[in-house]
């Protein structure tokens, strides 16, 4: 009934230049550049037409996102001197636009490629460690991993777990985003085969709005987890850590 040949393999396959580790996914690069240019154009247009105090249309939307993320940063980090807001807003805008552009015919989400999401996640976690070292100092940064409990054996065991968790973090961050977008786009193709003539109705009425929603939520979750990881990484305690494990 449903076979692999019927479903378009377009979401699965990326055209590649080069070989092995140096292979470049052409469509991902192209769409990332498109997203970046689009964001710059939107930024310039909104900046030139900006009406302070009387926002309308696009400016209103962007101000909503910016103030939502600023509220999140202030809520999470308090008044600690960590200037993460601009980079976090940039990440949110990039990821959200990447998620949306895959729903336009002829484009694929750059986040539909595991390379993009792993790169973004490594960047985010790199940010966490950068701020962590800056807040605690190099010695405090290393010591933090081995300061969970009182007994020395427990410290070593939990410390190993903590270090391992630091390696797992970028991958959960990356795979969550990647699979959400990837499955969303693949299911568009699957629905096309499964429902036949009814598929435009179903896709248009349910799946594409749902994908927009998922794209928004996933971009927000990515940014929110980055902020809360930064928060965990920059907390300075004199005594033992109370909480330990965080969000995953």
């Amino acid at each position: 009934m449903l076979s692999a040949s019927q479903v378009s393999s377009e979401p699965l396959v990326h055209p590649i230049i080069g070989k092995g580790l140096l292979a470049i996914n052409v469509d991902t690069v192209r769409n990332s550049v498109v997203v970046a240019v689009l964001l710059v154009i939107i930024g310039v247009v909104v900046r030139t037409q900006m009406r302070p105090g009387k926002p309308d249309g696009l400016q209103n939307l962007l101000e909503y996102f910016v103030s939502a993320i600023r509220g999140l940063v202030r809520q999470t980090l308090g008044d600690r001197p960590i200037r993460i807001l601009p980079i976090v807003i940039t990440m949110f805008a990039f990821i959200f636009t990447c998620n949306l552009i895959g729903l336009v015919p002829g484009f694929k989400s750059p986040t539909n490629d595991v390379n993009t999401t792993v790169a973004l996640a490594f960047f985010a976690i790199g940010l966490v460690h950068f701020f962590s070292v800056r807040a605690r100092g190099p010695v405090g940064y290393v010591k933090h991993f081995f300061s969970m409990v009182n007994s020395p054996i427990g410290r070593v065991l939990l410390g190993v777990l903590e270090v391992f968790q630091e390696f797992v973090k970028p991958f959960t961050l990356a795979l969550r985003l990647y699979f959400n977008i990837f499955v969303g786009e693949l299911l568009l193709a699957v629905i096309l085969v499964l429902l036949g003539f009814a598929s435009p109705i179903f896709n248009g009425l349910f799946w594409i709005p749902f994908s927009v929603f998922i794209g928004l939520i996933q971009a927000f979750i990515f940014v929110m987890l980055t902020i809360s990881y930064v928060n965990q990484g920059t907390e300075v305690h004199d005594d033992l850590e109370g909480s330990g494990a965080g969000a995953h």
Partner: protein
Amino acid sequence: MTSNGFILGMSAVAVGLLIGLGALGAGIGDGLVSSRVVEGTARQPEARASLLGIMFIAVGIIEALPIIAVGIALFLLFANPLVTK
């Protein structure tokens, strides 16, 4: 050396288990989150907006796991790496 038919059949079983169990777990999780949000809203109606925001984030994190399961399932269905061509 097992035949491609056997691999595909087993893959179909695996796809069913992946999607079914993933949906089961995520359903339970979503239900727990939503029920607590309803309770919280009933107790403190003015906290509704912030509770909804937190709920969507929590549900998004929970939903990621079955989505990953569905992704692996679709890989098994349409681009099975075990089948020898």
